């Protein structure tokens, strides 16, 4: 019983950590973007204020039950995938490491890939029920783009899987601990392909056609305000934390304590963000075919490298 | 008559019978009139009958008919093969029947198409 209690508390702690880190990153990204634009920019805690405001906003209307469930699905996806990602190296040196090893032994990488799309589907359903054409358009764009980046992503992962004969994330971390080499150096092509996919996953430019505010009125979320938007926003923050942590775990040797985690994830995060700030926007089919060119090539190269 | 002359004559008879058949076949294959085709068929039949009869012929043979004095004659004259003649008789009857049917059909075709030109009677094809 006590064990379960610790688990639950650990889960809550993980969630809070992910929420805070994700939100802060969001704010920091806004700040950095502003600085790149030669602006002052909002304070780094701006996202918290926005979230609080959204939370305190009234939500007078809804468009049906899926409208309610959409954000909930999204949150479920984020939180459950968070539960299966090793935030810190399990059994690491810090005293709080065991808090963050929630259910990481109960699911492997393939499972994680699937649970991560659970939210997209729920979100898509929620957006669909609002009846707003912009939402549906955004959803189809998002799903199409997902099909695009999934190929290099899976190629990268498969190349690693076959190199180390495992599909378990913990095993990947252990391999890096034992050999002392990060997998991004062990198989650089996989890292490059994965990085491309990561850019696609974060929906920053040039892959931000999904929500393109000017033409789609923010796309899938266009009918969602108030606490719906709050849920989506926090789930998005948690989710980006999940993605970054997963990437760090697989390619960058994991993190033994929170500081290392923050450094590594933040560094990683800057890649799509900074590239996004200075780049134009792709149309959907351009984005999709983009992923099927160089990223695919690097992915195949990664598999080849792994086989050889 | 000596044998050489007889053999030669046999070949001439065979040859002319086959020639008659070929003439009939020519008519069937080339002539475009239905009537001529029927005539051709008839000629083929006749030629064949000739051939068959001549096949059964024997030198100095006698007719295969039981009559007075047959056995006396048969003592030195062999009997011509009666079977072939019977066959030819049957074949002639059958040929007659076929010709009759064919001619009646020609009449029907004439009524129907008002022509006897075989290339025009092609309602049924492919």
């Amino acid at each position, binding site marked *: 019983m006590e064990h379960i209690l610790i688990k639950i508390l650990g889960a809550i702690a993980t969630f809070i950590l992910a929420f805070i880190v994700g939100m802060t990153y969001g704010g920091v990204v806004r700040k950095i973007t502003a600085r790149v634009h030669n602006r002052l920019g909002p304070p780094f805690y701006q996202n918290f204020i926005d979230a609080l405001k959204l939370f305190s906003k009234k939500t007078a209307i809804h468009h049906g039950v899926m409208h309610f469930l959409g954000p909930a699905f999204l949150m479920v996806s984020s939180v459950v995938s968070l539960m299966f990602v090793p935030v810190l190296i399990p059994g690491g040196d810090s005293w709080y490491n065991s808090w963050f090893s929630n259910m990481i032994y109960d699911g492997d990488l393939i499972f994680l890939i699937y649970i991560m799309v659970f939210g997209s589907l729920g979100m898509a359903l929620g957006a669909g029920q609002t009846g707003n054409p912009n939402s549906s358009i955004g959803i189809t764009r998002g799903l199409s783009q997902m099909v695009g980046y999934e190929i290099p992503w899976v190629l990268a992962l498969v190349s690693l899987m076959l190199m180390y004969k495992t599909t378990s994330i913990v095993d990947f971390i252990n391999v890096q601990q034992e050999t002392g080499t990060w997998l991004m150096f062990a198989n650089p092509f996989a890292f490059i392909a994965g990085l491309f996919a990561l850019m696609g996953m974060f929906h920053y430019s040039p892959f931000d056609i999904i929500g393109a505010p000017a033409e789609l009125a923010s796309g899938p979320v266009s009918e969602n305000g108030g606490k719906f938007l709050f849920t989506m926003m926090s789930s998005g923050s948690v989710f980006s934390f999940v993605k970054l942590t997963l990437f760090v775990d697989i390619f960058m040797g994991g993190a033994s304590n929170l500081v290392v985690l923050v450094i590594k994830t933040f560094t990683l995060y800057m890649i799509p963000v900074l590239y996004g700030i200075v780049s134009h926007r792709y149309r959907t089919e351009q984005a999709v075919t983009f992923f099927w060119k160089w990223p695919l090539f690097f992915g195949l190269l990664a598999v080849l490298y792994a086989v050889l | 008559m000596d044998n050489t002359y007889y053999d030669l004559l046999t070949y001439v008879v065979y040859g002319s019978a086959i020639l008659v058949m070929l003439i009939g076949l020519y008519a069937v294959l080339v002539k475009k009139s239905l009537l001529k085709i029927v005539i051709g068929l008839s000629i083929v039949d006749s030629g*064949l009958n000739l051939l068959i009869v001549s096949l059964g012929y024997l030198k100095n043979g006698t007719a295969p008919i039981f009559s007075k004095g047959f056995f006396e004659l048969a003592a030195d004259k062999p009997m011509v093969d009666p079977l072939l003649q019977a066959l030819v008789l049957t074949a002639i009857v059958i*040929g007659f029947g076929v010709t009759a049917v064919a001619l009646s059909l020609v009449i*029907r075709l004439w009524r129907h198409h008002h022509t006897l030109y075989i290339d025009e009677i092609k309602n*049924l094809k492919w």
Partner: protein
Amino acid sequence: MVGTPVLFIAIPLLAAFLIPLLGMIWKESVRIVPGLVLMYLMVLAVSLMGHVAHNGPIIEIIAGWAPPIGINLVFNAFTGFLVTLIIFMGLLVWLYSYRFKSNVEYEPARKYFILLMMLVTGSTGVVLTGDIFNLFVFIEITSISAYALTAFYTGRDSAEASFKYVMMGSLASTMLLIAIMLIYSQLGTLNMADVASKIHLMDPTLKAISFILFVVALGVEAEIFPLNGWAPDAYAEAPGPVGAAFAGIVVKAMLYALIRFTYTIFDLSGAFNLLIIIGLLTLVIAEVAAIRQDKLKRMLAYSSIGQMGLVMVAFGIGTREGVFAALFIMLNHAIIKPLLFFSGSYLVYHSKKKYISDIDGMGKLAPFTSLLFALGAFAIVGLPPFAGFWSKLSFLVAAADNDMVLIIALILAVSIVEIVYYMRVVNRIFFFKRTTGLLARRPTFNAYIVMSVLGIIVLMIGFFPDTVTGYIQAAADSLFDKTQYIHSVLTASIQ
């Protein structure tokens, strides 16, 4: 014993001549007498079959001359099987055409039934006779009555079809006669058994030539490509029951003659290959032509030709299993094709041109007929659990046992073509909207009975094929046992 084999020839012939006389006394008798005759013959055939099964073949000697000099009739398992089939088909054709049209005139009916009797006479004669020239005579009897039956309808193009048939038929008879003469001039005998026992004495070249002449001559009647130009026309233009009679009676008898020459009389090893080649040619060309037909009966005719090709291929395999398969296909074809002709001619009854498109949506108007047509179509393409499947299966098994893989593949490919055109028709019947205003004709009571009987037989053979395979097996054995045939004929004496 109820009678002797000679009755199969004598009684229908007698009936054919008596019908006009009886007709003068009682008009209805022209319809009833053939039926009585055929029923009697059916009884006779069945009882003789039973006799043959127990006591061996019956050799009947005509006119008191023992073989090889006189003419003899052979009723063994093989010929008996075919005779039974022919008589049975004759009976069904009679029943079906008893009042094919509701108010048939006396005059056409008289002609029709005379010719039908002649047809039966000729066909049974072809099958039963043991003498080559006699065979020729019976073939001519069959042919001439077939010519006349083809031209039975005066209104249509039947005369044209019949004329083509006459042309081909008389050429064929010429060739047949030449071939007979060649054999006679070489061997001096015309008795089949005698010829068979002496055939090795014949000059090889002349033997081959005479065989070729036989093949071509009989091929015309047995619808071998390229000698079958008359067949689709004749099938299409003859009345429906006559088409059925062609498929069920005439072709079977002619094929019998061909097979008898190949298997029993001649000892040419290449003959089987020839059969396979021409069989395949016939099958492929006919099925290919059938798929592009727009007239129902013509399509059925081509299909019929194709089936004959298949039978020939099966005979060409040359093994006991092959013969078994061939006979099985013949049996099935003799049952299914008449079913198709019978039901098909009601489906296009009111249509002038007999186009396939005229049967669109017939399933609603004439459900029973359509159902039987569909049954026939399913059966003939060899879908289990209907009759056609088993014959096809036994054929394929026989072919596979002889390693004829490519031939199997070809035949199966052609079967797909067959499926396509039959299914197109079935689809039209059941799933198309009626496009013409033509009404369906209600089949007569007799026709109902005939079609139901055929349908039941199709199902019966489909579910319990073993009910008929015993006879077929015996027939195949008897055809295959050449020495036994020769021996039994040559040692026969006048009882």
